[in-house]
């Protein structure tokens, strides 16, 4: 009888040890955009490798809509147990909150875990445009305020925010045509219906290689290793430092030990040759930042955009 009780206590004891072992069930990664999109491809390419180090499957869940804020809300309001994560760093954390009221705080609602990648935002013109560099464009735009037209992927998108920051730093006024997504703006640029289009590196790569469009500048602080020929806005003397980031965050309040475990496992996956190779193929710039640095970067981008939106 006693032996049986001891046995039971032993079993229960073991079970509670196992319950402490994290992770004991699959980890869900929410993506705020459709399957097949940029954020989704990064999530899947990474999740595939990461689950080898997590010891549990990493399941990608697409919950697209409202510029990624539906998925962000879902994660922000979930239990901070480390099992629910989000691919963040784009519109849902950087911009959306400045243009309309969100049911979560774009920064304080999350625990940053690790940045995976960054995507440069390029300012493009037609290849036959008369401006050799961004300074010449600014000079022309200053002369005739309101004449030039730029396209973006939508009102309140990162592309729109880029042009707001650039416009303020350079002291120029332009007309804005928002499109639904990046492709519309590129078509309008090629067709001569707009003068400038902001597009991600991957979107504009093929067109600039074919010499149909020219990238005047990149909005990041440093030149992109994928497009080392394109100067930064900083180099031209305009104080803009903005990029689309992709990293993993969880809801605010994930326990320290779980955060540490997640970060360490994910960092191993980040350096794994399989992930490195996939990123090279996809034209994604791997860009690691740890929890603190990623958090600082997210809030810097957020407040910087908030600044110019409030003033504009």
């Amino acid at each position, binding site marked *: 009888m006693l032996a049986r009780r001891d046995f039971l206590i032993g079993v229960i004891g073991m079970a509670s040890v196992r319950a402490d072992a994290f992770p004991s069930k699959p980890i869900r990664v929410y993506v705020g955009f459709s399957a097949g*999109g940029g954020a989704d*491809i990064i999530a899947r390419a990474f999740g595939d490798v990461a689950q080898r180090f997590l010891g549990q499957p990493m399941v990608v869940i697409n919950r697209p809509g409202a510029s990624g804020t539906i998925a962000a809300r879902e994660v922000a309001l979930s239990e901070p147990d480390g099992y629910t994560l989000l691919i963040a760093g784009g519109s849902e954390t950087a911009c959306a909150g400045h243009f309309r009221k969100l049911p979560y705080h774009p920064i304080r609602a999350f625990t940053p875990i690790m940045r995976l990648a960054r995507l440069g935002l390029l300012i493009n013109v037609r290849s036959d445009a008369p401006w050799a560099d961004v300074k010449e464009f600014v000079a022309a735009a200053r002369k005739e305020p309101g004449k030039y*037209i730029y396209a973006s992927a939508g009102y309140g998108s990162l592309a729109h925010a880029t042009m707001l920051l650039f416009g303020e730093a350079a002291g120029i006024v332009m007309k804005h045509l928002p499109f639904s997504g990046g492709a519309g703006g590129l078509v309008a640029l090629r067709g001569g219906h707009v003068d400038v289009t902001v597009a991600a590196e991957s979107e504009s790569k093929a067109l600039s290689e074919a010499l149909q469009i020219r990238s005047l500048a990149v909005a990041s602080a440093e030149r992109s290793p994928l497009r080392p020929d394109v100067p930064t806005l900083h180099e031209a003397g305009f104080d803009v430092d903005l990029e689309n980031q992709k990293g993993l965050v969880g809801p605010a309040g994930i326990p320290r030990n779980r955060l540490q475990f997640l970060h360490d496992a994910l960092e191993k996956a980040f350096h794994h040759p399989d992930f490195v190779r996939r990123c090279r*193929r996809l034209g994604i710039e791997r860009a690691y930042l740890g929890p603190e640095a990623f958090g600082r970067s997210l809030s810097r981008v957020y407040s910087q955009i908030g600044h110019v939106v409030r003033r504009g």
Partner: protein
Amino acid sequence: MIDVLFDAVVSICQPETLLVLLLATMASLIIGATPGLTVNMAVALAVPLTMHMPLEPSLVLLLALYCSGIFGGSVSAILINAPGTPASAATVLDGYPLAQQGKAGKALKMALAASLAGGLFSVLVLVLISRTVADFALLFGPAERAALLLFALTLVGLLSGHSILKGLIAGSLGLLLSTVGLDPMLAVPRFTFGLLELEDGLSLIPVLVGLFAISEVLLQAETRMRGAIGLDLRQTHDKMLNRLSWGEISASARTIVRSSLIGTFIGILPGIGATVASFVGYGEAKRSSRQPQLFGKGSLEGVAASEAANNAVTGATLIPLLALSIPGDSVTAILYGALLIQGVTPGPLLFQTGLGLVYEIYVALIAANLFMAGVGLAFLPLFRHVTRAPARVLFPIVFVLSVVGAWSVRNNAFDLYVMMGFGALGYVLRRVEVPLAPLLIAFILGVPFEQALRQALVSSDGSPAVFLSRPLSAALIVVTVASLAWMAWRNRKESTA
């Protein structure tokens, strides 16, 4: 050139590649035929698979899923009045009446023939003159797009059936519903009630599935509750009724060619899509038909018009992708990503550095169209079995599939409420004989039209003269006015006659 083509044929015609093509075509037909499950979804789900596959099988997998799904959509459109994909919504208008007359087999064969013709036509355009037509697409700025979409909106008149007033009611309702969401220029929330789920507007798939499939389920339930026998499609197995003769195909040949041209043209322009193409193709077929009175009551020509047009979009959307490196819609955006995974960047340079690959894409597309025809033909008897199922079994299945489809678009339960709401709306409208097609087309065109209109006005500093000073848009506006005048004249003639 010839040897590049030959190499491409050889590399596509490997046994395992052909097996992938066969399986993908079968899967795509079934997914397409299921209301709510769309081509986009099939292609997106296949992308992770291609990460571990060599180039050629991944190419044929994606292209076959893309090409055949739209024909699959016509199967359920014809058999159960529920378009499997939005692009086959116009096929319902005549396909289902044909099925009710016991001619489902004939309608399906016509849909297949027209799909094949439209698909191959657009591939030919892609192969022969993609560079030229891609440049033509660039002429379409905001003003031209607005004028074109305005012309498409006049379809509301053509699709109204016998009561123009009811058509206009439906069209206005569609436009009104399209305003839900963030406005396309300044992102001001309209009718969102603070719900994030409504920021992108009401999603098309739940709206479509609700309007057509759910309303049909409700109507069938009502018929049964009244003790009537309800739908009986068993006569569909009459062999004579279901033969499609060469005469019938050649009678629709002009329609098929016209629709193929319309579909290809619309497919080249980014962001308009197969649904609009099929409605425009249908409307134009009705306008120039010798028997316009048959449209909406079971015209084979109507089925051909819609199906040739929507399949012609499939090849055409690849034109901006390959010639300009610009994905024109969400499926081609997914294809673009999938090609990147394979280490291929679609774009003008590909014609110089990767001609072999370009040819492989061409061959894969042609093969996908041929397989669609072959598998479709083989599946026809199977599809017709659907109509043999008793209504009390069939329609609950339709209901379950609709729920699955509406859910899986965004994995969001909110869309189920939208679907049920539109199911009720569709039921009421059909009971009072308000046509659904004008509602749907106005709903689809509303946002892009508003966006183009306002973009054009921003560019011109608010001057509406921009629509007349640009030649292409002026021409389109003249066509629109002429089309309205023609409709008014015909209406008068009909009412005085």
